C-alpha cells in the first residue's frame, strides 16, 4: 500500500457499538491491538466512531478517493487486526480481475520483433 513510496491509505475509521454483541471483537481489538497498530503506522489517521444499533465496520479512505468498507461483526480481535492490516496493505484500486501480471510502459528495449527483422 505504497505507490512509489507514498502510503495510499489516508484514514481508517473504526466504527463500533458499545451495546451490541457483534461488536465484542472490535471492542477488545480497540483495547488490545489498536494502539500497536497506530504506532506501526504513524502516517495513518485512525478515527474511532461510536455507532449504536449497527454492526461494527472498518472504513478505509484512500488517496484516490476510494472507500473500502469491511464489516467486522462477530469477529475475533485477531481477525479484525488482519482486516485492518489488509486495508493498510492494499492500494485503493478497484478489486477487478487482473488483466496481466506485468504492467509496463516500455514493453521493448531492443525493438519489437516483426517478421521483417533480419539479424
Amino acid at each position, binding site marked *: *500500500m505504497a*505507490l512509489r513510496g507514498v502510503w495510499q491509505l489516508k484514514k481508517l475509521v473504526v466504527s463500533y457499538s458499545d451495546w451490541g454483541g457483534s461488536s465484542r471483537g472490535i471492542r477488545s481489538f480497540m483495547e488490545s491491538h489498536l494502539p500497536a497498530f497506530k504506532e506501526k503506522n504513524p502516517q495513518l489517521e485512525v478515527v474511532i466512531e461510536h455507532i449504536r444499533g449497527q454492526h461494527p465496520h472498518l472504513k478505509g479512505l484512500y488517496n484516490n478517493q476510494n472507500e473500502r468498507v469491511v464489516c467486522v461483526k462477530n469477529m475475533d480481535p485477531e481477525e479484525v487486526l488482519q482486516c485492518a492490516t*489488509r486495508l493498510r496493505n492494499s492500494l485503493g484500486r478497484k*478489486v477487478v480481475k487482473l488483466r496481466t501480471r*506485468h504492467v*509496463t*510502459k*516500455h514493453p521493448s528495449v*531492443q*525493438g519489437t520483433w516483426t517478421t521483417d527483422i533480419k539479424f
Partner: protein
Amino acid sequence: MANRRCLQFLTRRVSALFSANPPLHTLSTPPPLSTHEPLKALVSKSPLIFSPNWSAPTRHFSSDRNDGVDDSEDDDDDDDIGYSSDDGSLSKGGGSKREYTPEEMAAEAAGIGYKVVGPLETTDGVFKPYEPVFAVIQIGSHQFKVSNGDSIFTERLKFCEVNDQLILNKVLLVGTSSQTMIGRPIVPDATVHAVVEEHALDAKVLIFKKKRRKNYRRTKGHRQELTKLRIIDIQGIQKPEPVVTEKPSKTHGKKPEKVAVAA
C-alpha cells in the same frame, strides 16, 4: 497345534538353561514376534506346568523377562515412533503460524522466492527515470521480463512488508539495446532491486462444480493473495549513457526566436 509347538520350543529353551547354564543375555534375544502371543499365553500357563518339577526356575523363567523386555522394547519403539511422527505432524500442521528464525526466513526466501529482503525504503530518490535495460527474472516458478519502472504481480511473498526493498538475485538474462547477457542458467553478479508496493487479494473467482443428473453441485469462492512489486533498478550490465543533449538544443533554439520577436 501352535500351543504344542510353543511348548516344545519352551522345553528346549528350558533344557538349554539347565544343561549349559548360559548367561541370561543369550536368552535375551527375542523370540520371533509370531510366537509372541502364544508365548504370553503360555507364560501364564507355564507355572502351572513346570512348578511341580522345580520352584526356583519359575522366577528365572527367562522367557518371562524376555517377553517383558521385548514388550517394553517394542512398546518403547512404537511410542518413540509415535511421538516423533506426532511431533513431525504437529510441526507441519502448525506451519501457518510457525515462527521462523531470521536465518530460516532468509534461507526460505532465497530458496523458494529467490529474493533477499533489504532494508526499508529511505526515500532517497530510489525511483529513477526509465533506462533502456531489461532483465528476465524468476520468482518462485514464474518468470518475468522486466525493466525499470515496471510493476509485477507475484504470489504472496512471505517475509516482506509493504515499502520493503527486495533484491531479486535469480536473473536469467540481462540486456540493453546493444548488448545481451544470457545466463547459464543464472547471470552471476546480476541483481534486480524492487520495492514491495502492495499485498492484496485478487478478485473473487467462483469455482463451480456440477455433475449433471447426479444431484451434485458445489460452489466455492477463491481469492488469491498477490504481491505487487515495482522494479527500481537493474544491475550487472553496462548501461548506455542517457541522451541529454536534446533539451539544451531546444532552449537555444527558442532564445534567438524570442530575441528576434522582441527586436
